């Protein structure tokens, strides 16, 4: 195994991050978003939102913007050269807005292999909560590593 199964069940430290307008504007531009509630504060407020609304897949970005230090990529055994994104699932409990301070905690759900070890999967869920500890979103990310030396 390239991935370290000792990490299964491990929980990261809690990270705090404020959702920034500039970050969301760049994200909106990148994905071709045209609805101004996702990048213009006045338009968002006019539509009844308390600030720029965070679009559906931005929750997946928070784990990159405030990455977990433990377990580290090295501890997990991740190698970007062999890594592909396999699955992503987001469960929504409450909306996120620009200016919100949220807390992230990432848990290693599972590590397993397929095709006699040629493919190794890492599944992690990032729990996004508000300052009161209420769950806002759960983002489950699955990546796959191709194990070139797995023929044994």
């Amino acid at each position: 195994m390239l991935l370290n199964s000792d990490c299964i069940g491990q929980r990261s430290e809690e990270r705090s991050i404020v959702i920034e307008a500039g970050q969301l504007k760049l994200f909106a531009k990148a994905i071709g978003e045209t609805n101004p509630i996702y990048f213009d504060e006045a338009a968002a407020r006019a539509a009844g939102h308390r600030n720029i609304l965070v679009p559906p897949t931005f929750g997946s970005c928070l784990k990159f913007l405030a990455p977990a230090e433990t377990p580290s990529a090295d501890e997990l055994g991740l190698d970007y050269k062999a890594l592909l994104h396999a699955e992503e699932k987001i469960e929504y409990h409450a909306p996120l807005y620009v200016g919100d301070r949220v807390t992230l905690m990432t848990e290693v759900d599972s590590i397993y292999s397929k095709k006699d070890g040629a493919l190794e999967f890492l599944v992690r869920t990032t729990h996004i909560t508000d300052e009161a500890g209420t769950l806002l979103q759960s983002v489950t990310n699955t990546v796959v590593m191709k194990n070139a030396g797995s023929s044994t």
Partner: protein
Amino acid sequence: MTIDITQLAVGDTLPPLEFGPISRHTLALYCGGSGDLNPIHVDSDFAKASGYEDVFTHGMLSMATLGRLLTNWTEQDTIRSLSVRFTAITKIHATVTGSAIVRERTNKGGEDLLVLDLTTHTQDNQQTTKGTAIIAVPTV
């Protein structure tokens, strides 16, 4: 055309949404906008050293297209979950089209739910994602 969510039935389709062609510039924007700094999407030297012809697109750009497809048609707070499986790499310069079809209409915990089957395909009809969205139907 406005779609009445309360009238949607199994087999109905939602308006598809096209995104692309996805340029190197798009990938650079998404690298910065998402914070996904994996060089495989923006550094062709790194991509070649990793055994690929060239950089390839973030799968999350296809998922974002599916997210936009949904919010083009329903209020975002009706989305209960969105999940995708990436079934093939999306090459640089591809144009992806997101599609959604109603698979099931069900009731859970007193909430009327639509289960949508989602896919994205490239211009040469390669499927790149397959997913599911669960949407709560607002009570009238």
